[in-house]
């Protein structure tokens, strides 16, 4: 019995869609799970009722609506509600795909850096372009914190600029690394159970109780992380957008 914790991240093309340059564009298992996530969100938001007293499904839809709306209002103010559809899409996409990804034998979209990086860059460029469009050159105030003595201002500005351009990196790597590491850890501990059982027989199965308990605990943690990382990604998006809406703090 061989543990292969990396196998779960394999991209497997299901069928080829076409070619762009010398790249083959295939419909992969990742694509499948992306569309599953979109479908689940659409089902949740559109198939739920519109009753005065909501049922369970409708409550979930309304709670997610209110949850994202409250997050935006508290971090970016009521002007941030302009980006409600964007932030709601990002949050729900990540939350649903992460939660689907925790189910055994499924694929986790955000365990691939290219996906999280694409979303982080989408946020980065939205912030950059909206900030410049709305505030013009005043947008660059975000690099000049108020109340900093003039002699250390160049240093602070350098750090601020650097951190601004490193945002997409930290934004994407945080989500990617969390999902990747969590899934590897789960697979490794779950693999221990089978490995002990198959190599040591009855004694191994008894001994396997320990890694099994650990797997269950880790699984609960991963459920939390799946939601939490989606929330962190969304709230960071709000905070970055707040810079574009209100530069100069």
């Amino acid at each position, binding site marked *: 019995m061989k543990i292969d914790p990396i*196998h779960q*991240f394999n991209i497997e*093309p*299901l069928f080829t869609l076409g070619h762009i340059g010398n790249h083959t*564009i295939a419909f*992969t298992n990742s694509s499948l799970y992306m569309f599953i996530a*979109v479908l689940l969100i659409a089902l949740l938001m559109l198939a739920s009722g519109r009753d005065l007293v909501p049922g369970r499904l409708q409550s979930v839809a309304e709670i997610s*609506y209110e949850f994202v709306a409250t997050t935006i209002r508290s971090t970016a103010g009521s002007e941030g509600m302009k980006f409600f559809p964007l932030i709601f*899409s990002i949050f729900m996409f990540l939350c649903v795909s992460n939660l689907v990804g925790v189910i055994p034998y499924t694929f986790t*979209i955000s365990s691939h850096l290219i996906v999280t990086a694409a979303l982080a860059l989408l946020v980065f460029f939205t912030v950059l372009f909206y900030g410049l469009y709305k505030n013009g050159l005043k947008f660059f105030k975000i690099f000049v914190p108020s109340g900093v003595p003039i002699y250390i201002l160049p240093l602070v500005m350098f750090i601020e600029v650097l951190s601004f351009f490193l945002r997409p990196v930290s934004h994407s790597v945080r989500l990617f690394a969390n999902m990747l590491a969590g899934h590897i850890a789960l697979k490794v501990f779950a693999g221990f159970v089978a490995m002990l059982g198959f190599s040591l027989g009855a004694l191994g199965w008894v001994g396997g109780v320990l890694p099994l308990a650990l797997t269950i605990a880790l699984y609960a943690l991963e459920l939390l992380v799946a939601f939490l990382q989606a929330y962190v990604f969304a709230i960071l998006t709000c905070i970055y957008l707040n810079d574009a809406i209100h530069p100069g703090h």
Partner: protein
Amino acid sequence: MAESHGEAKGQAAGAHTEAEGGHHGGTFPPFDSSNYASQLVSLAIAFVALYLIVSRIALPRVGGTIDARQNKIEGDLAEAQKLKDESDAALKAYETELANARANAQAIGNETREKLNAASEVERKALEEKLAAKLADAEKQIATTRTNAMSNVRGIAADAAGAIVQQLAGVTPDANAVNSAVDASLKG
């Protein structure tokens, strides 16, 4: 099984065979650049579709439901407040009416009592007058009766005196002398 399946698919995809099976000491899947293009295209399609669904249909729909509920609750609260105000006003009107009625009843009672008192007073006076008249009549009758009786007593006394004198003296006395003698003794 899944691995060989993946490799078969990889061969079908042509140029990416090595990359697909690459985790056996090859490329770590998340850092395998050969499938970046596929993922980016899928992500773009899926996310744009999601964005359109969310912004055009889902959020207005759910937001509309929440707003409708909010309006309904506010409307109901306003309605309840209105009804409460109305019932308060009705209660106040009822209490005013009740106080008026009570005052009226008191007035009517007082008036009736006074009227009855006056009537009974008049009756009492009339009765007293009648009784006084009767009393006066009775007294007058008593006086008359006594006078009569007194005059009868004189006659009887005179007769008795005449008879006594006759018995004692053997002579019938003069009636006038007896009368004057009786009168004199009655006076004395």
